[in-house]
């Protein structure tokens, strides 16, 4: 009973907190409009939003909540498969929330002292943050498809408000890219879900997976769903919103976007695709190719970005590309799946928290805490190295899947992934380099929320394998003999990075050319294509419209002429009147003829 109650509270608590802000406003009637001091929005209550979720994740045993009246029959549950996801998501949300309180302190102060605009923006943030969180949590715990879709949609659309928080041109561009891609993804997901759920006539995700596995057109349904969630997961080609949206969002929002929300796509795959069942091999091969392309391509393109958050965003695409590859391997060789699932979960948690720490670090480098400079930069480098696979959780993660892949004979893949790790190293170097170049001077106290949250996130990220409650076997550290094999990509990456740095310092011309490659890569190309298509459609519509209006005009002219003719009819009346008697005789004759005929 208690766990299911906790399950409900997990969802209701953030919603309640969002509602609380509205209620506060209603109580202090007119707070929105009037000048003067206003209530604080991002208080500690607000930060507590993911706490029940954290509690639930740590609660022993499984939980289930069945609701008859909810949508088409609600079914939320927490099992061992969901627990790690819930745990690391809630953790990162909590840390990012804490961080946000410090990050937005200036706005908060402005708002409290009466700046209407700042207050309004902050209000949006304070409302949408818990909403996004609720959506994220719901999609993790939902077992019935409607709830899952609801969570996904809620998270997606509420996060739009977080992306455009800054409300400047870049933010709106990022927001637009985010929204358009998200809507496309939602459409694909809806189509896939309707098709597969309709075919299998089921309402829960478990049954859905089974249904797709046995369905005749299962591969196509899986493809639809894979593409739909792929938008969120940043599959290459569909990833274009990531580098546009992440840099413009406030840093804590970027952290959760990159750390947790893109994992929602992954959760979607795991929830809906019949992984571990046969039948998806062709799709799997495609997935592997796309994954690797993403992992490498994003690294190459990300290296030339200037904004550290854009670089980090590309790194996310790259990392997600690796995870995608792993998912693809799962499709190609189903027997590997149980082990792969562990690896993927670990990878996701590791990447989520580490990327979160990295994003939070961007803010830290702008407002360094009162710590010795070397320590700050060391701490900033730690997650970067971890992500590259050199130390701590990164090393453990990499070992987990490499071991698995070697054992299964996917040596070539491992090599490719290692090449991608070289790219990751380059990206990390680039990001840190840009952070260094744009480092801030003004120092903030150590015990402020921002540094605390950052430090905590570093600790959490580094120790992922230690506390993550994985269902299967626990990851072990690699034996020493394997270390060179695991570390060479990092080393190579560092060397290349150093060479590139030298090259950059030597001549600046080549770089200027590269700087023209904006974040969002394919987006611009898509936009051009779309606008061309739209103008084509527009022309078509105009042609149709003009033809329609011509037709209408002709009809109208015809109508006018007909009306005029009818208006002329009374002329005949005069003859009728004059010839009444002859006409009568005529009628008599006609009738006679008729009678004669029978």
């Amino acid at each position, binding site marked *: 009973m208690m766990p299911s109650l906790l399950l409900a509270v997990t969802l209701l608590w953030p919603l309640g907190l969002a509602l609380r802000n509205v209620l506060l406003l209603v109580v202090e009637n007119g707070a929105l409009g009037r000048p003067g001091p206003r209530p604080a929005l991002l208080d500690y209550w607000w930060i507590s939003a993911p706490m029940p979720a954290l509690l639930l994740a740590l609660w022993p045993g499984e939980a289930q909540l069945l609701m008859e009246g909810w949508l088409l029959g609600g079914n939320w549950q927490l099992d061992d498969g969901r627990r790690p996801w819930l745990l690391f998501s809630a953790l990162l949300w909590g840390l990012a929330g804490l961080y946000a309180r410090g990050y937005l302190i200036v706005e908060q102060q402005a708002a409290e002292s009466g700046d209407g605009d700042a207050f309004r923006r902050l209000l949006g943030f304070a409302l949408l943050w818990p909403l996004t969180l609720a959506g994220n949590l719901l999609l993790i715990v939902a077992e019935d498809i409607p709830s899952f879709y609801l969570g996904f949609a809620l998270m997606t659309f509420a996060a739009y408000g977080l992306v455009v928080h800054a409300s400047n041109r870049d933010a709106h561009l990022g927001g637009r890219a985010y929204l358009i891609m998200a809507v496309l993804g939602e459409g694909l997901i809806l189509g896939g879900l309707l098709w597969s759920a309709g075919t299998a006539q089921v309402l829960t995700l478990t049954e859905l997976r089974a249904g797709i596995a046995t369905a005749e057109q299962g591969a196509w349904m899986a493809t639809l769903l894979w593409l739909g969630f792929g938008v969120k997961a940043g599959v290459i080609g569909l990833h274009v919103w990531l580098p546009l949206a992440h840099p413009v969002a406030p840093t804590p929002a970027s952290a959760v976007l990159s750390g947790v929300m893109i994992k929602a796509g992954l959760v979607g795959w795991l929830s809906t695709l019949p992984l571990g069942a046969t039948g998806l091999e062709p799709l799997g091969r495609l997935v592997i190719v796309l994954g690797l392309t993403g992992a490498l391509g994003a690294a190459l393109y990300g290296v030339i970005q200037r904004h550290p958050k854009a670089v980090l965003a590309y790194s996310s695409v790259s990392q997600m590309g690796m995870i995608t590859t792993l998912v693809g391997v799962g499709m190609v060789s189903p027997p590997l799946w149980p082990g792969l699932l562990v690896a993927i979960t670990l990878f996701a948690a590791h990447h989520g928290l580490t990327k979160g720490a990295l994003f939070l670090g961007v803010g830290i480098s702008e407002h360094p805490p009162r710590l010795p400079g070397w320590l700050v930069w060391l701490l900033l480098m730690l997650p970067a190295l971890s992500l590259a696979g050199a130390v701590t959780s990164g090393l453990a993660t990499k070992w987990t899947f490499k071991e698995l892949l070697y054992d299964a004979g996917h040596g070539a893949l491992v090599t490719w992934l290692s090449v991608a790790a070289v790219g990751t190293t380059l990206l990390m170097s680039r990001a840190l380099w840009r952070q260094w170049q744009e480092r801030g001077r003004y120092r903030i106290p150590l015990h402020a929320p921002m540094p605390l949250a950052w430090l905590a996130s570093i600790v959490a990220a580094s120790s992922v394998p230690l506390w993550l409650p994985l269902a299967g076997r626990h990851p072990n550290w690699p034996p020493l003999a394997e270390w060179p094999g695991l570390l060479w990509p990092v080393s190579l990456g560092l060397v290349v990075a150093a060479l590139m740095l030298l090259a950059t310092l030597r001549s600046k011309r080549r770089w200027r050319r590269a700087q023209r490659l904006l974040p969002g890569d394919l987006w611009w190309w898509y936009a051009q294509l779309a606008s061309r298509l739209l103008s084509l459609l527009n022309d078509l519509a105009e042609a149709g419209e003009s033809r329609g209006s011509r037709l209408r005009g002709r009809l109208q002219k015809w109508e006018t002429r007909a009306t005029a003719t009818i*208006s002329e009819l009374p002329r005949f009346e005069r003859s009728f009147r004059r010839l009444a008697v002859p006409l009568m005789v005529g009628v008599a004759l006609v009738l006679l003829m008729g009678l004669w005929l029978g």
Partner: protein
Amino acid sequence: MIERLGGDFSVVLLVLGLPVLLGGLAACWQPRRSWPIVAFSLLPLLALAGLFYQVLPQGEQTWLIELGSLTLQWRANGLTLLLLLLTQVITLSSAAYAPAYLMEEIGREGKQVWLWPLQGVLATSLSLIWLAGDLLTLYIGLELMGLAAVGLMLLPGRVDALAAGMRYLLLALVGSLAFLLGVALLLGAWGRLDLAGLALAAEPGMVLWVAVALLSAGLLLKAAAFPLHAWLAPVHGSAWTPVSALHASLVVKGSFFIALQLWLVLVPEARVAAWLVGGLGGAAVIWGGLLAWRAAKLKDVVAWSTVSQLGYLLLGFSLLIGTAPQVAEVAWEGTWLQLAAHSLAKAGMFLATGNLIYSTGESHVRGLAGASRRMPLSLLSFGIAAISLIGLPPSAGFTAKWLLLHASLAAGYWPWMAVLALGTLLSAAYIFRVFRYSFVEDAEPLDYRRVPWSMELFALMLALASLLLGLVAEWPLMLLRAAGGGS
């Protein structure tokens, strides 16, 4: 002198005589209010109730009246009762409408005294036509009706009224001559005038055909069937409102009734000729509708709509004559229901139109701009009557159209369906043209005259009757069936 085959003959005499008597009385007294008229009109209604009481239980009744060697034959059946009731109700309404109308709108103009006796004569002559069982009575009724109608039309005494009236008079006279010629042939050939006897005696042949053709042509001229309708609209344009109402709703129906009676008796199998009459009806529906649509004056719209609506009745010819019994059965009910619906609706609409013209002082359709702002009751009455004319549910016009459509479909007469459909659309077009003007909001505000309540009341009552008759159409039709109307 009177051979009683049926019930009490005095009731019939009362039904026939009371209207004339009351008309004469009213001419002496010149009523200034509506209530005495309503009160006195209850007398013929009572007499009619007596007739109902006689006929309903026993079915059709016939009376033979012997005037020397001349024998007249009158009969009463369900159809007669229905038509008598209709006549009484409409005459009552238009008579009760008249005092206020005469006082307010006409004033000193015209010869008002004559209105009452002529209305009485008209009611009597119509009753005579409904009751007639032989051609002589029919002829007398027809002539009386025609002369009374012309007299009524002439009352305004203005030049246009007189010119139109003169044309009407001449054409009516010629029409009756044609009728008389036909009757002469029939009498010459078979030597009898009673319808029942003729039905048995008449044999198809040139004499019969010529006689029927002449008869029908004359009657169609009087019934304003297309293309012999040209006298109708000008006559209505200048007539007094209650007279128009009476004329459009009843007088033209009298000729139609006679024609249909005679066809059913004399040439019940003349399919082709009936088709031709139906064709004339179809043309009338369309022609009348088109002209009503373009008419500039409010009264012309209504008058032309009469031409159009009469076309529906003429369609009945083709559906009744020479068709299968089940088709004829439906068409029979449809035709009489249409007649009743149109009579009530048209009378109501004319009265409402008179009110609109009275209150706005404008006789043109354009003059109604913005009239709905005050939502005068007359506009509502006009609208309700219009529903029946267009044939939209739940009006009697709709039910009648349903039956006619049913009959034409069952008979396989596809063109008639098209005619009915087109007629509906055209009538909607001319009615809503009027309403469109009434909804104009940016028009100059008119100064409205208050319409006396009695004028409003009777217009509304007739319109409502035509509307509600659609839902309770089974009652009059039951009357048709119960007391027999023969088809």
